[in-house]
């Protein structure tokens, strides 16, 4: 099923690569490199899934996750956190993320998770 996916990561390379990988699966992809603008983008675009990096300048992924999970209108938005941090999974789960994937990840695994998160 095709999904509207918003990806937020502070690394340009990751964004480009993910865009290409997910686009091939006929998902609708948009990307955001500045986490401060993310909530605005969500409001405007109403994505089905958010793929979120953890360590980002100024506003980190776990902070965003917490904020979103506390907002009634977005608390049901599935969030998949991706991170290269060793303690990433712990941090993401505690913040309320729906799923987690450690960088570097396998594209197949990513697709599986994208598929299963509703």
């Amino acid at each position, binding site marked *: 099923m095709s999904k509207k996916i918003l990806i937020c990561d502070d690394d340009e390379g990751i964004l*480009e690569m993910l865009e290409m990988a997910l686009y091939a699966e006929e998902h609708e992809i948009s990307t955001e490199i500045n986490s401060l603008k993310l909530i605005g983008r969500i409001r405007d675009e109403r994505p089905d899934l958010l793929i979120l990096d953890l360590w980002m300048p100024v506003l980190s992924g776990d902070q965003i996750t917490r904020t979103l999970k506390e907002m009634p209108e977005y608390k049901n938005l599935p969030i998949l956190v991706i991170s290269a941090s060793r303690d990433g999974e712990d941090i993401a789960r505690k913040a309320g993320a729906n799923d987690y994937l450690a960088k*570097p990840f*396998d594209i197949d695994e990513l697709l599986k998770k994208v598929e299963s998160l509703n």
Partner: protein
Amino acid sequence: MRVPALRGYENYMQNHTSTDQLPGDAGHSPDLPLIKAALDASVSGIIITDNQLPDNPIIYCNESFERMTGYKRIEIIGHNCRFLQADDRQQPERLKIRRAVQEGEHVSVEIRNYKKNGDLFWNELFISPVQAADGRVTHFIGVQHDVTRRKQAEEDLYREKELREQKIKERTLQLNASKEYLDSIIQTVRESLVVLGPDLKVIGVNRHFLNTFKVTASETEDKSLYDLGNGQWNIPKLKELLENILPSNNPVLDFEVEHIFPHIGKKLMLLNAYRVELEGEYRDRILLAIEDITDRRAIEQRKDDFLSVASHELKTPLTTIKGYMQILERLLPKDADEKLLEVVGKSTKHIERLNTLIKELLDVSRIQTGNITLHRERFDFDEMVRETADTIQNVSPKHRLVISGSTGIDYEGDESQLSQVVSNLLSNAIKYSPDSANIEVNLARVSDYVKFSVTDFGVGISPDDQRKIFERFYRASDTQKNYPGMGIGLYICEQIVSHHGGNLWVDSEHGKGSTFNFTLPIKQKTNE
């Protein structure tokens, strides 16, 4: 002593040539033979000299004197007494004798004399003058005892005493030297040392302590540890150590105490405490060695942080590369050039290797600094092994992983770390048995331990290498060429297992294969 005046020597010589006669014996007294017999029976050597004759010659000696000196009477009579001194003429006693003879006085001396055969004997000599009615000293009577034995004993005693005193002197010197030596060690050590009495009063501290904690010796010594510097050493954890832990766990090593001191700030200290148990003066004294690890800990933390950041930053582009490689694989047409497929396949493999290396680096850094933290939770041990084996099996289709047995235990431990251990051991088994398909995994509960073993039928490990493979960065000698890697995998495994209170070991025969085993205690120690 007064003796009747005796007749002159000349008369005596004329009238008496036999030994039966005493000087003055002219048959006047019926007692004289008896007196003579008595004198001969005496153990004392007795002589009489005639002071009126030139050189005061001996005119009488008893038998004991003959025995004592070894000279015969004929060799004695007529000589001055000094013949007994042989060549030993420098004795101070001679002066005493000479003066007494000149003054006509009593004297008693101990003097070295020599027997006829040359043997030394100590002569305890009493000399008494005999005065005529007009007061002239006419004769001297010498009574002598051979006191060689006593003298010898005295001498021995004196020697002994001298020797003992010498020894005591040496011992004292030695003691001082060793005390000074010990003291210099204590003062030189770059670690704070405190000696406490049984009442926890400070008996002494070393210079490093004074410098580190900015105090003087007079502020410190003979004060209760807890009262030092306005009670700044009154630290609950230190109290716990000294009063509750040390009495039953002597010595205590690596006891960590963190404390904020008023002037010098927060200090992280590693303590060794040792209570003297030997009977004696030092019994129940407590030695406290304090290592200030504040800076070291901070540096370790910075290194950890750096490596965390570094590995995070390295992984980010690696994620991108890995993603593109997978996209590339998908984009390749099914009938693509074989070379091209090979290139893509190899690139993927090496990206994986790079990823492993980055992960290992961080792991080793954490383990080295002791920062390995366990997230303990209950999990199905057998299930964990199965899942891990499945993952490995999927990427190694050429080998066949067979699991037998079960532990049936919900183990409380760090699942992801133990899974890392299992994964590491399984992939080693595959890596080092390229020509043998079977890998056997066995699970068992043994007493109150869970046991995991994995057996391969590969290259095996020589006894020499078996001892070292769990060391950091160690690589078995012949593996470097064929099996690249940093050689820290087993080190990490060993550390993880021992942090769980378990044991990891290998049984192997070179050329036949290896079995890696680990056991984990089912009941965790509470202080872990």
